[in-house]
């Protein structure tokens, strides 16, 4: 039993900022509209609006109480319409603690409580409570004790712990997605742009201006790319600072973040699939990102599609990592057992990869015939990508486990248990039927209750059927 408590008053600030966010657009518009003639009215109106928002923020803080009664979290809130929400302990899937910058100043934390429901938002969130209180709530409902002071020191007990080294973190940043943008620009862009821009522009009236500014533009471009790269490194550093994953009983704990400190709980039971992602930049160096599909979680909203289990690992370390953290999961493909796409499927991969580009290209060639020298290398890149996708597409059955490998831009290998597959689909269009090819689709429960689909296109019909038979429960159908 405990008394009804309010959140820390800092919650008013969060409410206020949140309320203001919704109005900022209108504020800017009315500022632009009223700036000359009636700035006074604007200021008065703004003050009134701020006052109203503040009042609401204060009231919603004042009216929000929570208490813990016999393994139940009870919240009462709502300014005019009173709402009560009770969440019982055994319905709680995970409790995440997040500390933003403001939280850390006051030593507070945000508590997000997830249940199995498939909404996009956390079921319940306490915007600001004292860190100690947040941990008390988590421990009461999840029954785990992690001392935040001890985080940096090695754990005393034998629970497996993996932390990211600062060298690895730097490497992760340097090879993050932003590096990909640069590579695309540098690789295909610069060598070619120089060739055709001057010719095209020099005979125009404003040639010399552009000529002068071209050097400027290129310099600026290089600086910009460098800037993006640095941003990418910084972004990764801030996000994955001191990334630590621990296994405790049947749950994984992740702590990470420099400015915003996050503590995430993943119940192992809720993991639907585990996979590795080899981005184009990391693949040559043998580095991968390890991720998991966790059902019904709203972690990392809008950041990642899947929950990152470890931001950067050597491919050879994955097995050891999984053995320690997630026994029973293994994403390594056995070359001899894996089933690939037959040769006759290649043309579909090449066409798919290059079709949009070819159509766009043909259009452009009509307008700018010279551009063809620029387009051909790009086309080759697309065809190359298609070929790689063809080479990488594969599946492998290991008793009750299925491993699927595919490539969009980066190569993904994902492992899923038979019982985690929600539905299986086999697709054939008319041309496929003639060539005895089929595309397979495996649906898994992803985050936010949305399905996640893994596909292998243009498999041999026989192999597709083999997979269907493996999946099918009905003996009569085999």
């Amino acid at each position, binding site marked *: 039993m405990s008394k009804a408590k309010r959140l820390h008053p800092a919650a008013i600030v969060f409410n206020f900022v949140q309320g203001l966010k919704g109005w900022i657009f209108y504020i800017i518009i009315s500022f632009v509209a009223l700036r000359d003639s009636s700035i006074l009215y604007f200021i008065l109106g703004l003050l009134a609006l701020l006052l109203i928002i503040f009042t609401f923020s204060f009231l919603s803080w004042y009216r929000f109480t929570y208490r813990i009664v016999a393994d139940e979290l009870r919240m009462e809130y709502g300014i005019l319409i009173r709402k009560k929400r009770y969440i019982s302990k055994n319905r709680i899937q995970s409790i995440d603690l997040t500390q933003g910058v403001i939280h850390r100043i006051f030593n507070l934390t945000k508590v997000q409580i997830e249940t199995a429901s498939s909404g996009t938002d956390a079921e319940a969130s306490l915007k600001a409570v004292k860190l100690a209180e947040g941990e008390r709530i988590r421990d009461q409902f999840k029954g785990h004790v992690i001392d935040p002071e001890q985080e940096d020191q090695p754990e005393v007990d034998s629970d497996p712990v993996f932390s990211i080294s600062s060298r690895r973190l730097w490497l992760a940043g340097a090879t993050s997605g932003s590096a990909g943008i640069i590579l695309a620009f540098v690789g295909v862009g610069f060598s070619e742009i120089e060739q055709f821009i001057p010719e095209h522009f020099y005979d125009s009236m404003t040639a010399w201006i552009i000529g002068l500014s071209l050097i400027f533009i290129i310099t600026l471009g290089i600086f910009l790319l460098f800037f993006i790269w640095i941003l990418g490194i910084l972004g990764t550093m801030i996000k994955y600072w001191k990334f630590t994953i621990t296994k405790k009983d049947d749950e994984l704990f992740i702590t990470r973040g420099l400015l915003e400190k996050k503590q995430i709980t993943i119940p192992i039971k809720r993991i639907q699939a585990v996979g590795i992602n080899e981005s184009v930049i990391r693949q040559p160096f043998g580095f991968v990102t390890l991720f998991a599909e966790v059902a019904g979680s709203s972690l990392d909203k809008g950041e990642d599609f899947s929950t990152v289990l470890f931001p950067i690992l050597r491919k050879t370390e994955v097995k050891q990592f999984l053995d320690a953290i997630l026994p029973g999961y293994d994403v390594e493909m056995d070359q001899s057992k894996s089933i690939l796409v037959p040769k006759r499927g290649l043309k579909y991969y090449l066409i798919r990869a290059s079709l949009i580009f070819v159509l766009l290209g043909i259009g452009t060639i009509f307008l700018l015939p010279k551009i063809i020298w620029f387009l051909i290398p790009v086309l080759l890149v697309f065809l190359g990508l298609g070929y790689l996708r063809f080479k990488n597409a594969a599946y492998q059955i290991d008793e009750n486990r299925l491993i699927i490998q595919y490539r969009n831009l980066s190569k993904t290998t994902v492992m899923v248990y038979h019982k985690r*597959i*929600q*539905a299986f*689909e086999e697709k*054939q269009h008319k041309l496929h039927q003639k060539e005895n090819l089929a595309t397979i689709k495996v649906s898994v429960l992803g985050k936010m209750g949305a399905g996640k689909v893994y596909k292998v296109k243009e498999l041999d019909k026989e192999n597709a059927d083999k997979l*269907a038979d493996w999946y099918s*429960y009905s003996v009569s159908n085999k």
Partner: protein
Amino acid sequence: MREPPKNRIALDAIKVWKITAAIYIGVLWLLIIAVGVLFYIFDFPFWIILTAAILNAINTYLFIFVIPELRWKKWKYEIFEQEIYIQHGILITTRTLVPMIRVQHVDTEQGPIMKKFKLASVTISTAATKHVIPALHEEDAANLRDGISSLARVEEDDV
């Protein structure tokens, strides 16, 4: 080679689809006529409306006279004790397997046109996907719904 599913959906589905398509396309025709009248009054170029009319004529032919039959022909389903097996698609044939233990809930649904023909559609939802059997006789749909929901059991340790 895997066998396709055995059961067909109700034959009246063709009529339902035809009527539904006729309503949609009828609205399009009305729109074209209305715009045509406006174009005539304001003396805008007529070929635009002519193209629209030709396109809609093709639509009419395809969606009322060709596609419903083909669609019905391709639609097959079979309910096993442990899974649901569905096949559909005219150009792209899709065969789907949904295990019973993955089924979260089953809905039947009936619009006004379907009601007239005593048909209903059955929607089978898993945690991640949705599968619709578009037209069954009312009793079949109800039986199927009850049958599936009694067969569907959610294992504790999963989702």
